């Protein structure tokens, strides 16, 4: 009976949460991992400091720094221009909120239209495809001009504020991008999922809504967030239509003081605006990775 040495323990002991002290070898491994961790923190800290010093000395040591500092980084000008720029930024945020909602709705709609099967839907598919082709190719600034100055010329409506037309133009352009992202997500859902849904008797629309789209949206959330961040800063382009947003406000301030600091202020505010979204994107992406990919250490 020598070949088999049963390490059998009583089943009762197996279920108990017996806290066994780690072995010496495990403690040594933990100590080693801890020392590696400390080392990498130290290295990252050091390399950051070295880089910061190098960059700082190049910029601050340049011959024109005094002049640049006065023109671009003047604290007094910055403080004076802040209220008007903030007021402008509020308009950007309003446009952003409306445009995001519209983009989500239209993007999803167009993506869904492109997935419709059957000859009856041919013209719809072609129109949806043509739309995404056209508006992804067209520079946003041209769309802004055409929509902002062209459509009011038709005189369908009474005079609308520039921000209104800006929102429409942003929606037109970004819906095209977002539709393509959604479509990529829909196509990335394995056909067996659609098959399983149809086998249960769900219609095409039902399988899309209940099975395919929920999975598709999850797959493309990081890409969608990325488009949202891009739109967040492109909202600043509505200033070309004359809307007094943060960029326009900075322009007005700059013209009054002959100092470019207000642009820097507006730029920083846009960065601050996008920062939470960028962090949120990272967080959502990391969480999805953790949930959907097991065996995470490879």
């Amino acid at each position, binding site marked *: 009976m020598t070949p*088999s040495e049963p390490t*059998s323990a009583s*089943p009762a002991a*197996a279920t108990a*949460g017996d806290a*066994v002290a*780690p072995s010496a070898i*495990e403690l040594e*491994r933990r100590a080693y991992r801890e020392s590696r961790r400390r080392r990498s923190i130290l290295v990252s800290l050091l390399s950051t400091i070295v880089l910061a010093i190098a960059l700082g000395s190049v910029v601050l040591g340049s011959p024109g720094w005094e002049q640049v500092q006065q023109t671009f980084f003047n604290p007094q000008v910055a403080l004076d221009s802040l209220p008007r720029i903030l007021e402008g930024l509020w308009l950007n945020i309003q446009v952003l909120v409306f445009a995001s909602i519209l983009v989500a709705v239209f993007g999803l709609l167009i993506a869904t239209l492109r997935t419709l099967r059957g000859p009856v839907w041919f013209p719809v598919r072609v129109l949806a495809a043509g739309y995404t082709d056209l508006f992804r190719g067209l520079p946003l600034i041209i769309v802004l001009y055409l929509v902002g100055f062209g459509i009011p010329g038709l005189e369908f409506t009474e005079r609308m504020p520039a921000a209104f037309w800006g929102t429409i133009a942003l929606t037109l352009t970004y819906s095209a991008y977002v539709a393509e992202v959604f479509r990529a997500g829909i196509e990335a859902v394995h056909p067996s999922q659609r098959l399983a849904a149809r086998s249960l008797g769900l219609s095409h629309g039902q399988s899309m809504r209940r099975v395919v789209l929920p999975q598709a949206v999850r797959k493309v959330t990081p890409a969608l967030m990325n488009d949202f961040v891009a739109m967040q800063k492109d909202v600043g382009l509505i200033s070309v239509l004359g809307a007094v947003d943060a960029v326009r406000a900075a322009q007005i301030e700059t013209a009054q003081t002959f100092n470019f600091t207000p642009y820097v202020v507006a730029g920083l505010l846009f960065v601050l605006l996008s920062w939470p979204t960028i962090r949120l994107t990272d967080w959502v992406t990391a969480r999805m990775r953790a949930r959907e990919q097991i065996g995470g*250490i490879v």
Partner: protein
Amino acid sequence: MSAPAETVLSLRGIRRSFGEVEVLHGIDLDIAAHEVVALIGPSGSGKSTLLRAVNLTEPIDDGVVLLRGEDISDPRVNVDRVRARIGLVFQHYNLFPHLSVLDNVTLASRVVHGLRRAEAERRGLELLDSIGLADFATSFPDRLSGGQQQRVAIMRAIATNPELLLLDEVTSALDPELVGEVLALIRSLAEAGTTILMATHEMTFAREVADRVVLLDAGRVVESGPAAQFFANPREERTRAFLSRVAR
């Protein structure tokens, strides 16, 4: 058996917890060269976790994994080099859908072991031919049946001549009529002297092919013994209970 066989794998006191739950309570296990060991036990007994711990794809909380006497659980070892010495076959095949059957089989030879493409493909085609799938070399995995895919996955795992082959319930996802072809392949590998550690639910197969059978339950080795004796004359009450439940 002639001279005392060399030990390929030794596990000493392997522990692994997921949060509060300890799934491996200190596992000891030795596998000699050319030995085929079947790991059986109910779902959740820790079979897959143990196999992944051997492959270093699952961190362990304590214990030592020795591959031919070398401590591969040491954080200083290069895990990629260790994994290159161990083959692993999954329940769901995990073939790369974007690569042809032949590329699946030859990928590691070319990329990890530095074989030239011609050389790797010559060996890959040999392997595919040995399982009667040479005609599918340029096809993509989706074109193959489950049994064919799993046999390709096994060829992918042994293409680099690993010192140890780990099989993680490789027939559990297959149609009953396709199980036979995969088991036949494993049997021929065993007869050719491959060292195998396999988690399995196929009791008949374990009895016929394995040299030794190990019953794992709730993260402990309940009983371990030569296959014939293990099934004919189990010592532990727990083993008898398990075997009577899985007997058809």
